[in-house]
C-alpha cells in the first residue's frame, strides 16, 4: 500500500467521526424542534463565518493549544498530568504580578512576564513530578488536587494582597496591566493576539522536539515502556524534570498569554471557568499526543465553542443546547470508527 493511500485512510477516520457527530448533533437539534441547517449555519458562522469570527476562534484556541501541548509532552513521557488548570492559573497570576510590579521598558517587561509565567507554571508542575519521583505519589491524583490548591491560592492573592484598589474595586482581580506590556494584537479591532503565534511556534517546536530530537526520543520511549528506557540508559528522573517542567511551562504560558493578551489583568476564576485545561487534555488525546495534531484539534474544539456562542447569539437555540451539541460532537470525534478495518490495513504492510 502506498504512503498516500495510507494517509488517506488515516484521514478517513476523523472525517467519518465528524460526520456521525454532526448527525448525532442534528438529531439533538431536531428533538428540540429547531432547524438543523440554520443551527449548523450559525455554528459555522460563529466559528469561521468571517475573518473576524475566524480570529475569535483562533484566540480561543490559543490557550487550548498551549495547555494541550503541555499535556501532550507529559503524556508522551507517560506522566498523566491533569494539572494544566492549576499550572495555567499560577502562570497567569505570576505573569500579572511581574507585569504590574517589574519596572522597565514595556517589551522587556512583557518578555520577562511571559518567562516568569512559564517558570512558575513549570515549577508547579514539577512539584507534582517531584512528589511522584521522590515519594511515589500518583501524579494523576496530585495534579488534580493541586488544581484546587492553585485556584484557591490565586483567588486569595487577588482578593486580598494584590486586589485592584482602583475604580469600583469590587472584583477579586489585580489592577490593569499597563498597555505597553500587553501582548500585541495581530489585527486591530480583533481579539487575536501574539499568543497565537507563540502557540503555533510551540506546536512546531514541540513536534520537532518529540519526533526528531534525542531527548524527545527518550521521552517517547519512556512513555511507551519505562523498562526499555531504563535499559537503554534513559534517566527517568531527568526526563521527568524535562517533561513536567516543559509541560507546566506551556500551561503557564497559556495562562500568561490570556492575562497579557486578553484580560490584561489576573481575574479570579477567569482561567479556570473557561475549562481550557480540560479542553487542552481533550485536544491532546484526540490527536494521540501529536503536537501538530493537538494544534488542529485545539482549533477544532475552539471552533465548536465559538460556534456554540454564535448559535446562542443568533438562533433560539440556547447556549446549553449548543454545548450539548458540542459535547456530542466531541464524543463522536473521539470514537474510533472502522477501527478494526483500519487496524488490519495498517498492520499487514
Amino acid at each position, binding site marked *: 500500500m502506498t504512503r498516500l493511500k495510507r494517509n488517506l485512510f488515516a484521514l478517513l477516520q476523523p472525517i467519518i467521526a465528524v460526520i456521525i457527530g454532526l448527525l448525532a448533533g442534528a438529531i439533538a437539534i431536531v428533538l428540540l424542534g429547531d432547524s438543523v441547517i440554520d443551527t449548523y449555519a450559525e455554528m459555522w458562522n460563529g466559528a469561521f463565518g468571517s475573518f473576524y469570527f475566524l480570529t475569535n476562534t483562533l*484566540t480561543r484556541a490559543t490557550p487550548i493549544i498551549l495547555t494541550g501541548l503541555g499535556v501532550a509532552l507529559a503524556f508522551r513521557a507517560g506522566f498523566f498530568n491533569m494539572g494544566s488548570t492549576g499550572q495555567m492559573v499560577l502562570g497567569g497570576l505570576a505573569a500579572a504580578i511581574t507585569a504590574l510590579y517589574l519596572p522597565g521598558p514595556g517589551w522587556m517587561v512583557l518578555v520577562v512576564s511571559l518567562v516568569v509565567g512559564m517558570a512558575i507554571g513549570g515549577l508547579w508542575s514539577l512539584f507534582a513530578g517531584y512528589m511522584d519521583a521522590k515519594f511515589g505519589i500518583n501524579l494523576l491524583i496530585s495534579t488534580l488536587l493541586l488544581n484546587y490548591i492553585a485556584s*484557591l491560592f490565586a483567588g486569595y492573592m487577588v*482578593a486580598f494582597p494584590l486586589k485592584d484598589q482602583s475604580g469600583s474595586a*469590587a472584583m477579586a482581580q489585580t489592577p490593569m496591566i499597563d498597555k505597553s506590556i500587553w501582548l500585541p494584537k495581530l489585527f486591530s479591532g480583533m*481579539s487575536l493576539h501574539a499568543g497565537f503565534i507563540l502557540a503555533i511556534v510551540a506546536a512546531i517546536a514541540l513536534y520537532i522536539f518529540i519526533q526528531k530530537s534525542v531527548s524527545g526520543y527518550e521521552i517517547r520511549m519512556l512513555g511507551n515502556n519505562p523498562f526499555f528506557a531504563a535499559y537503554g540508559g534513559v534517566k527517568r528522573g531527568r526526563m521527568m524534570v524535562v517533561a513536567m517542567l516543559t509541560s507546566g511551562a506551556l500551561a503557564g504560558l497559556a495562562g500568561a498569554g490570556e492575562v497579557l493578551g*486578553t484580560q490584561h489583568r489576573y481575574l479570579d476564576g477567569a482561567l479556570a*471557568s473557561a475549562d481550557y485545561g480540560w479542553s487542552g487534555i481533550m485536544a491532546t488525546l484526540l490527536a494521540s499526543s501529536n503536537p501538530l495534531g493537538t494544534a488542529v484539534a485545539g482549533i477544532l474544539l475552539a471552533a465548536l465553542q465559538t460556534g456554540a456562542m454564535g448559535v446562542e447569539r*443568533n438562533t433560539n437555540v440556547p447556549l446549553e443546547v449548543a454545548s450539548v451539541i458540542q459535547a456530542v460532537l466531541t464524543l463522536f470525534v473521539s470514537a474510533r470508527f472502522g477501527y478494526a478495518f483500519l487496524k488490519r490495513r495498517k498492520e499487514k504492510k
Partner: protein
Amino acid sequence: ACSSGGSNSEQSASNGSSAEGTGKKMKIALVLPEEIGVNQFFVQMDEGFQKAGKEFGVETKTIQSSDPTAFEQNMRATVAEDYDLIITATFQAEDVLKQVAEENPDKSFAIIDTSVDLPNVRSVGFREYEASYLLGAAAGLATKTNVVGMVAAQDVPLLKKYSEGFKEGLASVNPKAKFLIGYVGSFNDPAKAKELALVQYGQGADFVAGASATSDLGVFEAAKEKNLYTSGQDTDRTVEDPDHVVLSQLKGTDAVAYETVKDFVDGNFKFGSTAYGLKEKGVGLTFVTTDSTSKLSPFIGEDVITKVKKISDDIIAGKIVVKDPLAQK
C-alpha cells in the same frame, strides 16, 4: 410563509431598505458576563428586560457567556451585528465595556450594577450596603441569642457590599451581638451552603442571612429544618417560606433593565451614571421599604420594623451615612 407570494416579501424588503431606522424594529441586546443560571440576579434582570421588550415592541436578545473571554467576544459580536443598544451588567463587564465602548464611540451602551464613566455609556449602580445595613439592624434587634450569621458565596471584595453593611447595621443597634460569616466558595452549591448555615446554627445563631446567590436555597432549607430565621436577596424571597425566610433585601435590577429599555424607546435615554440607594428606591428591605404579600414573622415583629424604618429614614435624610465598603480607605 414561503407560499405567501412574491409581492409580500418584496414589500417588506423595500420597506427595510427605504426607511432607515424609522420603520425598522429596534434591536436591543442584553449581554451577560455569566450564564443566567449562576445568579438569581441575572434572572430578574432578564425578566425586566424581556418585559420591556414585549411592551415597547422592540426586538430583544439575551446573550449569556460561559466565561470572560466568551463575554468579550459576545460584546464585540453584538457591536458587529449592529444592535441599537447594548446593555450589560455587573463589575465583571467593566473592563470589556470600557474597551468596546471606547472603540465604538457612536454606539450606545448601558451597564447595570456598576458605573463606567464614558460618554456613550449609561450606568446604573446600586448602594446595596444601605439595604444591608437595614438588614443587619433588623437582625440585631430581633436576635434572641445575640448571635447572627451570614452565608456568603465567596470571600471576594464584591460581597463586602453585603457583609460589611450588614455588620455595621448589626453593630449599630446591638454592639454585643456576635457576627458569624461563612463562605461557600461557589455560587451554586446549596448543599455546602446548608452545611454552613447548620454550623452557624450550632454556634448559636438564630438568624442566618443568605448572601450566596443560588446557594441561598440551601440556607433556607437549613432554616426550615432547624427553625432558624433567614433572609434572601434581590427579590422578595419571603414568599417562599414566610415562617423562616423572614426578610429579603431588595435590589431593583428588573426595574432598572425595564427603565433602560423604556427610556431608550421613548427617547429619554441619557448617558452618565446614577446610583440607586434607599432614597431612589433602587434597594430596600421587605416590610421596611416595601410591603410584602407574606405575613411578617413574629421573630421580627412590628417593633423592629418600626425601628428599622426609622433608621431607613435617617439614611435617606443623610443622618446616618453608611460606609461604602468598596470605597478606598
